[in-house]
């Protein structure tokens, strides 16, 4: 019987082909500044990266912004944004993938592939490295360096020894230790994630990696712990990195092409059934749940109708079809055929989440199945806006504080509701039971039938004595008690916003309490206490 091979403490080194774009932080933001100008990237008040022009003026990384600007006064200062760097690096990764598949991103500006497969395909490591160099440079241009060595650490250090004239370096298998020998121990700083160890090694008289590698591994391990062990392995050229292959997320978008141009809403949704089932099936296969979809309708006229739908839990096939139908119904007007034929329907998942995160608990946070079914059924007969859910949101005007959403749409999250914020001008006392969706025009008159006005300084022209409700039947009521004006000032900085409002509470002779708003001489009933 064959026995499994003995596990050694350091597995065989992996040949790594490393691609380095020098000065990537600067190159990623190069377009934001004038070409050739000095550029400083800043994070937490320190220089993270600087362009060659700035470096020539004496700026180094780790310098304070003030000091750097003193040395290079005309440098453009930009904030350091890792997200931008990653985004800009994406085309480079794609270009490498064209030549050699399975790219591992170490950090923006630095990518690695396993050299084994590429060597077999291109004939030798040198040819593979050249293929990448030319493949990427032909597509994107710019300075690019390629190194091949045992392990990531050696390959990275080798890449740093290249120059623009000879951008390719090859460290032969087993030669990594010799190559690393003369490097200072400070190169380990980033690898072992400990700033103290290199300094301590230097103080102990260990200045080069060869001196560290000559020590006994067990002793280094005992003195420095796991970091020391790792440092010793790296210094000995025994690096076996795990290269995670970058995996582009699968495109879950489903597009349904409608060949014969359809104008009936029901016809379109019927044709979508298979596609929507496929969409949900893809999600299930990937063990994903989707909370937000974008439905894109392509019209015959060339225009598109795009709408994002959010779901309080996650979309089932029937839910997606409902959204498509509602969007079509909004496009059509009242059971008429659509004015433009639909040529295609796309369903794009906007936000997906692993289904694992949403396993239903014992007391799930979503309503029971029969409630969902009953309400969805009711919504089919009454229309989308016929069945609503509600929430309270922060705001000053009562109608703004009320959030009504069709059943099946997500309500604002507690963070979006902003209830805990102070909202000056908010209403004291009990909230009224009737809040008019549209404020109703009323008149508030003084004792001598003159309209009550409020001056900009908040002075009332006379005590309100009569409330006239001109709605369905004219009705004038005596006001027995009142309070106000309570100014409500919001969005005065917006030109299109409302002017300042003044709020009054009125109590009429029938013990009916009202909340009325005064706006530039007009009076509106905002709510009724009934």
């Amino acid at each position, binding site marked *: 019987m064959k026995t499994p091979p003995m596990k050694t403490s350091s597995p065989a080194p992996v040949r790594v082909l490393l691609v380095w774009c020098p000065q990537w932080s600067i190159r990623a933001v190069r377009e934001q500044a004038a070409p050739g100008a000095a550029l400083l990237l800043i994070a937490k008040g320190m220089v993270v990266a600087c362009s060659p022009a700035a470096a020539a003026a004496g700026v180094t990384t780790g310098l304070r912004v003030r000091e750097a600007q003193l040395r290079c006064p005309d440098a453009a200062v930009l904030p350091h944004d890792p997200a931008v760097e990653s985004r800009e690096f994406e085309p480079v990764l794609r270009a490498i993938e064209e030549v050699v598949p399975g790219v591992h991103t170490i950090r923006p500006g630095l990518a690695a592939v396993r050299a084994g497969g590429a060597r077999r395909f291109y004939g030798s490591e040198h040819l593979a490295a050249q293929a990448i160099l030319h493949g990427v440079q032909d597509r994107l241009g710019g300075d690019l360096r390629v190194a091949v060595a045992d392990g990531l650490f050696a390959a990275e250090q080798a890449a740093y020894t290249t120059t623009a004239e000879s951008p390719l370096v090859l460290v032969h298998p087993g030669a990594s230790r010799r190559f690393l020998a003369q490097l200072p121990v400070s190169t380990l700083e980033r690898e072992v994630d400990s700033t103290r160890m290199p300094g301590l090694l230097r103080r102990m008289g260990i200045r080069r990696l060869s001196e560290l590698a000559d020590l006994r591994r067990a002793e280094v391990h005992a003195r420095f712990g796991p970091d020391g062990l790792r440092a010793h392995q790296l210094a000995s050229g025994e690096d076996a990195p795990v290269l995670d292959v970058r995996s582009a997320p699968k495109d879950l978008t489903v597009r349904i092409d409608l060949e014969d141009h359809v104008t009936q809403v029901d016809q379109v949704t019927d044709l979508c059934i298979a596609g929507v089932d496929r969409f949900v099936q893809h999600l299930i296969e990937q063990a994903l749940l989707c909370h937000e979809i974008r439905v894109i309708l392509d019209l015959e006229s060339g225009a598109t109708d795009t709408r994002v739908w959010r779901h309080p839990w996650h979309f089932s096939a029937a839910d997606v079809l409902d959204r498509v139908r509602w969007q079509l119904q909004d496009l059509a007007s009242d059971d008429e055929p659509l004015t433009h034929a639909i040529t295609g329907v796309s369903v794009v998942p906007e936000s997906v989440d692993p289904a694992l995160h949403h396993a239903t608990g014992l007391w799930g946070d979503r*309503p029971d199945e*029969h*409630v969902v079914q*009953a*309400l969805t*059924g*009711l919504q089919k*007969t*009454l229309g989308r*806006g*016929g*069945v*609503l*859910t*509600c*929430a*309270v949101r*922060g705001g000053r005007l*009562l109608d703004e*504080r*009320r959030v*009504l959403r069709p*059943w099946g749409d997500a309500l604002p999250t507690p963070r979006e509701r902003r*209830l*805990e914020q102070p*909202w000056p001008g*908010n209403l*004291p*006392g*009990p*909230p*009224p*039971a*009737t*809040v*008019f*969706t549209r404020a109703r025009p009323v008149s508030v008159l003084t004792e001598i039938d003159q309209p009550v006005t409020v001056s900009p300084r908040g002075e*009332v022209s006379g*005590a309100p004595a009569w409330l006239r409700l001109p709605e369905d039947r004219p009705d004038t009521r005596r006001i027995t*008690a*009142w*309070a*106000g004006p309570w100014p409500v000032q919001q969005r005065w900085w917006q030109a299109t916003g409302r002017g300042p409002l003044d709020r009054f*509470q009125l*109590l009429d002779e*029938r*013990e*009916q*309490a009202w909340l009325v708003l005064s706006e530039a001489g007009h009076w509106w009933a905002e*709510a009724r*206490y*009934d």
Partner: protein
Amino acid sequence: MLHPASATVADLHDLIERRDTSPSTVRLPVHPALADAFPTGLAAGTVYSLTGSTTLALALLAGPSQNGSWCAIVGLPDLGVEAAAGWGVDLDRLILVPDPDANQWVGAVAALAEITDVIVAAPSRITPGDLSRLAARLRSRQTTLVVTGPWPRAATVQATTVGWDGLGQGHGCLLRQHLRLDITERHEPRSIHLTLNPHQATPQSSPLAGSLQYFAGTPTVLPRPSSNTSRGPQ
């Protein structure tokens, strides 16, 4: 000889039981502030006709809602949901059907009766056939319907605002509402005086972080009207 007759009697008993129209003994809880007005709670599966106060209709939702039931409000598009939340109605389990057509009204209420324990609905025209079918549905689902208007064959709750506290001439703000409730349930009238006053809830105890104020009633029982007292032997 007796066997066929007793079988017929048993059948008739069965039939009567199945068609039993007597009010159910199941009661729904009410908000503590309304405990004096409805000492045994609301009768499940019946209809209440409530006039004069939307606030009270919202308050009647609070008890079952806090017990974990779903509630629905039909035909009140101008509802202040904040007032409902102020009474402790869980808005996550509140369904609004703002504006059903007159011919959709019965269907909507009947569908909601399947899943909710209390429905507050604005009245609508209804045929006698629909009326009895709806009553049967409510009884079998043990769902209480509170109609904010007159309704045939329903327990009536007539709310009258007696006065408000807190508002002066140009100062103050509305604080407390005094209500008189004239309730006729199973042909027994009773009158209750309720004061609804905002109880300053501490932010920790309030689920809406102190932005809403809670009511707590301080009810006082009025002497019964003379028509009621004259029934007993004196």
